[in-house]
């Protein structure tokens, strides 16, 4: 690969460090976290922690205001209060926390904003012509502004992968800057769609472009492309975040999204964050899971840890 440089408004030309990644060794390191065996109270703590990191997501063509309201209800009260009350008799039980955010399409933002009002839960929206990003920038910007206006506190944008693979890094970079401006106070998560970037070298470069352009978070995937989040790709992004922090002192957040369905997977991701970026990233301000079905599995495992019994899915709401 060659050196990449981009022009940054107010700064001038900046170079993006060339930083090769060896695929096999990166895969091997990422896999090593899957052999971590998390037991007893550390497991319970991790499960509780993971719930607080969930961006509870629905991104379907068939989404409706009703569906979104239900999801918001689940976000606020992951477990029906009656069941939660029954659990209080168990010594290890602590109240189930609310999730970090709800993530919806721009059209659903007004309904979600209303449902989440006063809950303290963030409202994320996938603006910028999600999931392909194949629309002109002015439309993306207005998409973002509209979502923010209707109450989105976080914007999950997609980068233009076509432009990236074409080598038009300045275009990718400029779009992120413009979207960041349009975000105002809303936090910006930049989705790289790693499943389309294909190589870890590309993922590293895209991560760095996004961070330099002002991303608050970098995020793996839309969930619409396979593979979505993987351990190795997340590992590569975590290392980029670490290096960026070392260089600039700025802490950038990380969000793997798509494909994380089980508590076991989530705990392995937490181990990976713990052993790469460290404890300062183990909170919802710095780390999120983009997921939907994961939440119920986390609850199931918490109940198992607390009561010693296995629970079936039906007692949890399926939203």
């Amino acid at each position, binding site marked *: 690969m060659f050196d990449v440089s981009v022009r940054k408004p107010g700064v001038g030309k900046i170079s993006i460090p060339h*930083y*090769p*990644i*060896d695929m*096999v*060794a*990166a895969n*091997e*390191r990422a896999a090593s976290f899957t*052999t*971590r*065996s*998390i*037991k*007893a*109270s*550390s*497991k319970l*703590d*991790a499960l509780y*922690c993971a719930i607080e990191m969930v961006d509870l997501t629905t991104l379907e063509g068939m989404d409706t205001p009703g569906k979104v309201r239900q999801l918001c209800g689940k976000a606020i009260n992951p477990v029906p209060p009656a069941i939660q009350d029954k659990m209080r008799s168990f010594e290890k039980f602590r109240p189930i926390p609310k999730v970090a955010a709800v993530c919806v399409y721009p059209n659903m933002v007004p309904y979600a904003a209303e449902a989440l009002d006063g809950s303290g839960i963030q409202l994320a929206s996938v603006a910028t012509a999600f999931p392909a990003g194949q629309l002109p920038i002015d439309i993306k910007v207005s998409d973002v502004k509209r979502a923010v206006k209707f109450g989105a506190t976080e914007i999950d944008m997609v980068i233009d992968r076509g432009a990236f693979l074409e080598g038009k890094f300045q275009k990718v970079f400029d779009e992120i800057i413009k979207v960041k401006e349009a975000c105002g106070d809303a936090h910006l998560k930049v989705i790289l769609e790693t499943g389309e970037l294909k190589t870890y070298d590309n993922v590293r470069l895209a991560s760095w472009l996004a961070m330099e352009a002002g991303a608050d978070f970098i995020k793996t995937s839309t969930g619409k492309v396979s593979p979505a989040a993987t351990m190795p790709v997340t590992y590569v992004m975590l*290392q980029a975040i670490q*290096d960026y922090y*070392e*260089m*600039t*002192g*700025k*802490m950038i957040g990380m969000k793997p999204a798509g494909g994380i369905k089980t508590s076991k997977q989530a705990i392995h991701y*937490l*181990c990976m964050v*713990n*052993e790469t970026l460290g*404890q*300062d990233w*183990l*909170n919802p*301000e*710095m780390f999120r899971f983009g997921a939907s079905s994961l939440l119920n599995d986390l609850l199931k495992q918490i109940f198992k840890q607390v009561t010693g019994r296995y629970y079936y899915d039906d007692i949890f709401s399926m939203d």
Partner: protein
Amino acid sequence: MTKKKTKTKTKSKTKKTFKFEYDAAPESFKVEIEEKYYNFIGGEFVKPKSGKYFDTVNPATGKVLSKIALSNEQDVDAAVKAAKKAFEGEWSNLSGLERGKYLFRIARIIQERSRELAVLETLDGGKPIKESRDVDLPLVAQHFFYNAGWADKLEYVMPGKEVAPIGVCGQIIPWNFPLLMLAWKIAPALAAGNTVVLKPAEQTSLTALRFADICYEAGLPAGVVNIVTGAGETGAALVEHKDVNKIAFTGSTDIGKLIAKNAGKTKKKLTMELGGKSANIVFADAAIDQAVEGIVSGIFFNQGHVCCAGSRLLVEESIKDVVIKKLKKRMKQIRVGDPLDKNTDLGAINSKDQLKKIKDLVKQGQKEGGEFWQVESELPPRGNFFAPCFFVDQSASSTISREEVFGPVLSISTFRTPDEAITKANDTNYGLAAGIWSEKVSKVHEVASKLKAGVIWANTYNKFDAASPFGGFKESGYGREGGRHGLLPYLEVK
């Protein structure tokens, strides 16, 4: 890299965060250990004629696990006789295919009993269960499976030549990979049609004796595999026995030389897999994060008790600071402790003696100057433990730069050009292995071709496979183990 601290989120901000500490995750499998173990000779467990036993100790706790037969010359003689009898009889009458079937069967039994064997290996030797479970045992089974298939194809080992087995092979193995070294020795020897007398290291006899049990379970003809336990004198008796046709030794260079000196006076064939002080070279154009992983697995795998450990890190001067910074951060994540805990990365030092040796060498190193850095790990109160550490910029003639420490101790120095890296890497009497980290393929090939070492890991380190020949140049010994090349030392070429 310059650090321009700015506003936004920085670590100074106090916020609710999750202190993720891993609770103990001990391997739950309980392995049965008998009070006393005998030699395995002629298909039976027999009491030592010496009548003596020695303790085998769990290095993580200091507790005695069992008593092991301390074999004398007579015990060794009985084992060699049994091996000779088997070689001259039943074993040589079998076709290669039938011989191979026994090895396939042994491979299968090892796979089935791998959990038991892994736990036993960890108990007796102190290596993390993660490694005995995920590295040692799979490789042990693979070595038997791989070599099994050679038993009926020996004419392809040396094309154009006729080959025949050598006879009785005396095999002496070390304590760092007890069962794996046994597999490296026994599998090719049997595939080639020989019979063996194997002496495990006195610190780690238990898995070899469990392997004897597996031979029995597999129905292997009596005397094909014999295990005699004991220390140096037992090994010496094996080396000196007149009916032993070949000696295969893995261990320290000093002992190896002594064996070669004695066995050299006879017609015995020799293979020697000895020590190393292998260089791990990191160029500025390497994939740095992966190189750091390679440095860590290079020197801290198996507590650094690895003959091919990448114990000399040579890093290009321009990236020295960033590599050391990343390395320190990474080393802090190494979990030192109970080998049976599934999250332990660095287990117990194999013995008190070895711990003392490591400590003495490190002390000597500290006297000789250079920067010393060690992870501040909380070590278990009992047992033999040592936290990972490194020295930076010691002179090339310093103790730590030249001596094989055989522990989690890394020596770091720098180079400026590829030629300098090659010269420094080759500046050792050893020649077992070397690592190269660069994303430039032509450079990798150039450097690989100029390093005087038997195994070159480019952009990886400490990888092993039954199909891959292993062995050294120079004072790291001769002969290869693994792959087609590994059969040759067990065959007579006619």
